[in-house]
């Protein structure tokens, strides 16, 4: 049985009060806290078998290589990839997107082609396509949301044409919380336009709910390790093997080559072709441990817990007068992210007062400024939940927000 209070015991950071008060961490959409098994796995690599991978003919190097490749297999199984070779380790979702931009989009797209993205994208999945349109004359068309913050898949016909070479969208919005109907969108697009590449930013989904890349039918999926209990510095690019195979390397260096001669180089196979230089070995191993941890909890359970927290927070926050929540109201349609505004109070002041009670939230545009402009709103405050969030955390949020209201009223 899933119990957030039991889960919390695995997180060293939650055991130590700050200034005598407990830590109320409500910013997991920015980065998650790290459980003991992940920290132990990283520490184990750095204390027991520190060695580079893919080259040492000695025990600890072989162990490091094996554990690094094991992590790849774990990640592959976690997202239901067909083959572990489809998993490329990067620094984060942003680097994965840049890899697609440099090694696929810049190679494949030219004047007259079109890319479709959505207004709810994180800057990391917005700026590359905007810049591509400036550099190459590739049209960047933006799929807007409705007033509730939902994408209407009936609108797709308006945006997808024969010229569309790439459709990209986020699995879960980091501001609205909207969970997009991936399978439905992919099916619709592929039916009329099978060669259109579909790229999904799953950074806000992989940590929070079960997912299956094969079932989606998309071509490329990116996400970060640090939002799913893993360390910072490790991210994932998943793509179908034929797509990866046709992409040129993103960076040159060691590990990504098979042979190097004075005038010629033979590149390594996928995925090593995209992992130049010594990778974040400890990071990958830590991510593997994070995947194990989440798998033990069960992603269905994780999702159910977050749904419960979201519903509870919705009710609690709705009781504060002058507070408006952005995005869909139905917790079944959204992830554990609630962005809001308070009438007449700047989000920075909200966060600052909350910090006095160790309540950590994120304020600003959450790397989604076009979305804020679309809704014609200024910066927002955002609380986000994860496996260690309890109703008590949300009660603390509510009471601190009430304090904020009194102070600035």
């Amino acid at each position, binding site marked *: 049985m899933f119990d957030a209070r039991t889960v919390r015991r695995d997180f060293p950071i939650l055991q130590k009060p700050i200034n005598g008060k407990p830590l109320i961490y409500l910013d997991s959409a920015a980065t998650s806290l790290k459980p003991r098994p992940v920290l132990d796995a990283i520490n184990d690599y750095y204390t027991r078998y520190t060695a580079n991978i893919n080259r040492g003919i000695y025990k600890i190097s072989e162990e490091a290589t094996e554990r690094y490749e094991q992590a790849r297999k774990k990640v592959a199984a976690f997202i239901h990839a067909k083959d572990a070779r489809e998993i490329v380790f990067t620094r984060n979702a942003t680097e994965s997107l840049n890899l697609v931009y440099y090694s696929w989009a810049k190679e494949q797209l030219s004047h007259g082609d079109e890319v479709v993205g959505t207004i709810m994208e994180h800057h990391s999945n917005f700026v590359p396509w905007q810049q591509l349109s400036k550099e190459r004359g590739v049209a960047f068309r933006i799929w807007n949301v409705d007033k509730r913050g939902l994408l209407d898949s009936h609108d797709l016909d308006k945006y997808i044409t024969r010229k569309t070479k790439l459709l990209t969208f986020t699995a879960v919005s980091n501001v609205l919380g909207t969970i997009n109907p991936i399978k439905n969108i992919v099916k619709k697009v592929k039916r009329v336009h099978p060669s259109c590449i579909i790229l999904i930013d799953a950074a806000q989904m992989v940590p929070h709910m079960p997912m299956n890349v094969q079932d989606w039918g998309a071509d490329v999926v990116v996400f970060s390790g640090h939002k799913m209990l893993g360390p910072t510095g490790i991210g994932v690019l998943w793509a179908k093997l034929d797509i990866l195979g046709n992409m040129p390397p993103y960076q040159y260096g060691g590990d990504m080559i098979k042979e190097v001669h004075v005038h010629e180089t033979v590149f390594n196979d996928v995925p090593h072709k995209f992992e130049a230089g010594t990778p974040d070995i400890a990071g990958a191993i830590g991510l593997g441990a994070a995947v194990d941890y989440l798998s033990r909890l069960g992603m269905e359970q994780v999702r159910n817990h977050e749904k419960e927290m979201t519903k509870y927070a919705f009710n609690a926050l709705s009781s504060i007068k002058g507070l408006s929540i952005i995005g869909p109201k139905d917790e079944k349609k959204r992830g554990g992210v609630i962005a809001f505004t308070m009438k007449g109070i*700047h*989000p*920075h*002041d909200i966060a*600052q*007062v909350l910090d006095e009670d160790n309540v950590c939230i994120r*304020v*600003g*545009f959450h790397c989604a*400024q076009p979305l804020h402009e679309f809704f014609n709103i*200024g*910066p927002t405050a955002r609380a986000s939940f994860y496996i260690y969030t309890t109703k008590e955390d949300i009660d603390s949020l509510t009471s601190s927000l009430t304090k904020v209201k009194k*102070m*600035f009223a």
Partner: protein
Amino acid sequence: MYREIILDHYKHPRNFGTLAKPDASAQEYNATCGDRIRMEVRISKGNIKDIKFSGVGCAISQASASMLTEKVKRMDTNAVMKLATEDMLALLETTLTPSRIKCAVLPLEVLQKALKT
């Protein structure tokens, strides 16, 4: 951080608005927090004769702007150009975290930009 005086300046900003015929003006936008501040001044014989500010932002940036306008009225523009971060912190008389110092200094930056042009 939110001393009574800061909240008072936030809720009842002094010298808020615009001038009919400003001698100098400037505005700045802080993209990370969406703060927007505009300063308009009238200058006579090298002194600030009148000053108004407008814009939106957090309590720190708004209070800081309000307090700054009170401080610099009738001040020599050369002296205003010499004001620095420490002066703004002294004005607010509060401790600020690194990320909020930007909010406190933004009004001064806008004013100095106006005086430079």
